[in-house]
Each structure stands twice: as C-alpha cells, then as structure tokens.
C-alpha cells in the first residue's frame, strides 16, 4: 500500500490548482490514504500484516540465524520431542524440524505468491480483453472461462503433475522443474474468478462519462484500457490477489500432502505433513508444527484480504 502511494504520479500543478492548494491547508486525501485509514481500523488485518512480515522474514533470514542443517540425518536423535536444541523436535530421520520448517516455508510462500501472480496476470488480461472489446471476443473468452471453471481442478492437477513431473525435473532441474510446474498449474486453474471480476468491472466502467471524455480528447485504446479503466478495477483485483495467495498455499500443500507435489527432499509444509502421517503416534509434533504454519499463514493472508476488501470498497464511508 505504502509503495503505491509513493509512486502515484503527482500532476503538474497548474495555476488554478496552486490557488486551490493555498486555500486548502490540509494535505489532499488520495484513494490510497483513505484505504489505509480504513485498513488500520481492522485490527486483526493489521496484526496479520505483522504476522506475514514476520513469517516472510523468518523464512528468508531464519536459515542464516538458525544454522542447523535441515538435511542432516542423525538416527540417534530421531523423533525427539520439543527441546531447546530442537524447538520443534526432530523427524523420523533425526532432522531438525524447525530448520526444515524455515526452509520449506520459503518454498510454500514463494509458490503462493508466484501462483497468485500467474492467476492474476492471466485473469486480468483475459477479463480486460473480454470486457473492453465485447462482442465476439467477449463471448469466446467467456466460453473459455466457463470451460475452465468446469474442469475438475484437483484431479487434473494430480494427473498433470504425476505425468509431467519427472520430465520437467530432468529438463529444468530438480527444484525449479516441479516449482514451475506447480506454480503454472495452480495459476492456470485459478484465473477464472479474476477474469469474471475484471470483465464485469470493465463492462460497467467503459460506459461511464469519463471514458467518453477520454475518447473525445483522442486517448488511444491502450491508454483508455490501462490508464483510465484499469485503476477503477484495481481494488477488487488486489483483494482477489491476496486471497489467491492463501488458496494457492493450500493447494500446494494439498498436492505435497498427497505425495504429488514437490519431491520428498523438498520440505514444503505439506510435504512435512506427508511424511509425518506414518509417525503420528510416536511423534505428534511432526504433525502439529507444519499444520500450525500452514494455518497461520493462510489465516493471516485471509484476514489481510478481508481488511483490504473493507478498505478498498468505495461504497464504505471513510471517516
């Protein structure tokens, strides 16, 4: 939010604007500052932002601070409970779970953000094209959207990952291959709601007078699309993007949990749960900590989305 308000271009002050400015003692209130004001009222959302910042920093910098080797196998230490030297215990091979959670979190969070980016990019593009051009383009793209909605996503994800995982691993690399595959697939199966949302907003906004005005002064099609209509659609898209990160994290961990996500040596949170199943009785901490991390991350993301929805809804009065 903060960056957005900084990069917002300031119009060159004309004489009239300067005059107005001198009349107005207070700083002008932009959409973003209003949104921020509203967002701050949602206490859980603000707390969630801090949780997310903490999680991101912990997974990014954590491995440098907590220097235990996440892949070090030590059978004498296997399935140990919580202790000072192992804050989250050890797994069946005696590896430190805390170190694995920190490492795996990087991947889980990265998958969430990257898959969101794919879905939002696809959805915004297709929705904008359909809404802006209308007619044949619109009905073709919407038919495509309907078809994608009818695809049974979980079975198809499982099937595609199973079939293509090994090939991609050989071609692109043991970590990057599955990552690209999973991110791409989650993105490709999740863009539809965004496309519908963007199309609907485009359809309603493009009939407004200010678009007519822009047309009259000879604005090009692309500048009308991106400069005039897009900013009006941004609010709902940002909310959808936030929630998409959460659902992508859930999908990735579901796939890894079913054993069809990342390979077993990549400790994403879902993968950690997958290995924990066989040791539940002797090592319940192997289940509890990864589950807690997934829950914490997704809950925080959803609360931020909720806060943003309230903040960016122009129908809400801002005080």
């Amino acid at each position, binding site marked *: 939010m903060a960056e957005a308000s900084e990069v917002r271009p300031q119009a060159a002050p004309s004489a009239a604007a300067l005059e107005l400015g001198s009349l107005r003692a207070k700083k002008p209130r932009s959409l973003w500052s209003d949104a921020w004001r509203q967002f701050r009222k949602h206490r859980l959302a603000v707390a969630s932002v801090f949780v997310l910042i903490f999680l991101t920093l912990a997974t990014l910098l954590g491995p440098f601070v907590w220097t235990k080797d996440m892949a070090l196998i030590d059978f004498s230490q296997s399935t140990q409970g919580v202790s000072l030297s192992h804050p989250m215990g050890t797994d069946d091979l005696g590896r430190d779970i805390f170190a694995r959670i920190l490492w795996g979190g990087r991947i889980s969070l990265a998958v969430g953000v990257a898959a969101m980016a794919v879905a939002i990019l696809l959805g915004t593009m297709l929705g904008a094209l359909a809404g802006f051009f209308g007619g044949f383009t619109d009905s073709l793209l919407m038919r495509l959207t309907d078809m994608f909605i009818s695809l049974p996503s979980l079975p*198809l994800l*499982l*099937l595609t990952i199973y*079939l293509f995982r090994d090939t991609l691993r050989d071609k692109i690399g043991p970590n990057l291959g599955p990552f690209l595959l999973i991110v791409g697939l989650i993105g490709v199966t999740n863009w539809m709601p965004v496309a519908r949302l963007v199309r609907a907003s485009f359809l309603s906004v493009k009939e407004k007078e200010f678009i007519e005005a822009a047309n009259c002064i000879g604005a090009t099609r692309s500048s009308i699309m991106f400069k005039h209509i897009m900013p009006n659609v941004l609010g709902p898209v940002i909310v959808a993007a936030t929630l998409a990160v959460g659902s992508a994290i859930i999908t990735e961990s579901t796939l890894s949990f*079913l054993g069809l996500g990342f390979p077993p040596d990549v400790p994403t949170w879902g993968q950690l749960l997958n290995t924990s199943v066989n040791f539940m009785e002797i090592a319940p901490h192997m*289940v509890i900590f990864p589950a807690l991390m*997934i829950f914490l991350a997704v809950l925080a993301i959803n609360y931020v989305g909720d806060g943003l929805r309230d903040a960016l809804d122009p129908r809400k009065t801002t005080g």
Partner: protein
Amino acid sequence: MGRYIIRRILTAIPTLVLISMVIFSILALAPGDPLSDLALNPSVPPEVRQRIRENMGLDDPIPVQYGRWAQSLFTGEFGYSYRTRAPVIDLIKQRLPTTLYISGLAFLVSLLIAIPIGVLSAVKQYSVFDNIATTLAFIGFSLPTFATGLLFILLFTIKLDWLPSIYRSTVDGDGLGGLWERIRQAIMPVTVLALFQAATLMRYVRASMLENVHQDYVRTARSKGLTERAVISRHALRNALIPVVTIVALSLPGVITGAVVTEQIFRVPGMGDLLISSIRNNDTPVVMTITFLFAVLVVIFNLVADVIYGVLDPRIKYS
C-alpha cells in the same frame, strides 16, 4: 423456461466435448507408456509387445485415438483397467457408493450447521454470537482439510482413543454393534469435510441474509405485526436462500473432489482413493474415466444451479 433449460443443456454439450479433449490431450502428451511394465518383463518378447500395442491402438494418430475414446464413452463403454483387468465401470461402481455416502452426509451436516448459524449471525449482527461465529468460520476455511483431519486423528484416535482413524468397507459384526461401528468410523471423515464446507457456506448465508434483513419488504412484514420469527423465517430467509441454493449446487462437485483428500487421510476406499492409486499405477483408463466423471458432475451441477435459480427467483427472465 422449458426452452431455456433445453438451450442450457445444449450449451453444456460443447463444454463437455472440450473438457474431454483437454483430458485426452494431457494424457496423450504425457511421456508415460502403459506398456512400460511389459517392457521390463523378460518373458514378453518385443514382437508380442508390438502386437499388444497394435491391438490396443496405441500407435494410431492421436485424433483417431480420441475419436475412438469419445465414441466408446458415448456408448457407455469405459474400457478395462490396465492393472486389474476389470471393467472400469465395475471398479467405479464398487467405489462410488462410499464416496457419495461420505460426501453426501458431509454436505447435509454442513447445511445443518451453516444455515442456522448464518441466519442467527446476520440477525444479530455484531453481537458476541456473530463475532464468534464469523471468527470460527474464518478459521474453518483457513484450515485445509488434511490439516484438520490429521489434528482430529491426533486428538480423537491417538490421545483420547474414541474413534477409529481407518475407515473399513468391511465391518465385522451385524446388528446394532456393527451399525455403531459403521457410524463411528464415518464420524471423522464426515466431520472434517462438513466443517470446511460449513465455514464457506455460513459466510454466504450470513451475507445473503444481511442483504435482505434491511430491505423494505422486511420492514413491511414487521410493521404489519408479524412475529419476529415469522419475519425472519418466512420472509427474509426464503429470499436470502435463493443465491445460497446456487452456491450449494455449485459447491457440491467440490465436496466430492474434496473427498480425494479426506479419503487419503482416513483410508476410505472411495473414488478419490481409486483415483490416486490409479494415477500411481499408470492406469490410464481408470484415471481418464474418473477425471471425466468429475467434470461431468461439475457441468451437471452448474446447469442445475442455473435452472434452480430461474425457478426460485421469478425476477430472473430468460429471453
């Protein structure tokens, strides 16, 4: 209305054809070979393998293979499992009742939880009850089913030893004892699925109810002296449920595919379990049939949702 339904069914057909093409091309592009096991078997000479390939039509061009597959699908012929040699339809008939039983029951339970809580929550907006209910719903859909499932097993099977964690299709004992055993083993899979579903549904019920309780017609009903109970249940709720019915119909296929995860956790021998094991076994005919069946379910329920919406809401006019 009749014409609308017919047109709606006609538009569903190309969608199904497209979906079948997508599923078929994913498999056709995939590197796996159904006869890879035979290739490793030294007692099968290469010429025999070649003859099997020709018999199965594996070397025909892909469009020809697709045509053959689509034709047999249309005539209700689903082929034979590569692994067990049994007709695919028999395998599915074996597994389908369990899945329908678990997910149907879960769906019912979720409705029984979501509707009353959603209504109460909306009627008493911002009350303590509403705050607790919305927070729980938020937590509910931030916790993926596999995480809840594992935590349930930890608590109710390992800690308390109340419920079995494994679902068996053959339960020993007849009469009341057997029945109780059958209920007991279904409790956890059903609850896990139902809670997740209820969390999502409850938010829709609440939102839809909130839109209605402040409408003029509700005020009219109150001012003509109806009891609060009649106002809520006979006037507001009936209108509020219209969009909810659509959501319910749309989410039903999701509950069934969602069973893939719960079936893995509790080892329920249903469709999801069959899908996962067939994917692992490279059992193409079974995988394709199940994925296509899931797609058919989604398309059918989309159609049902549209039609129900038209029937329930007389304001919707079809031209």
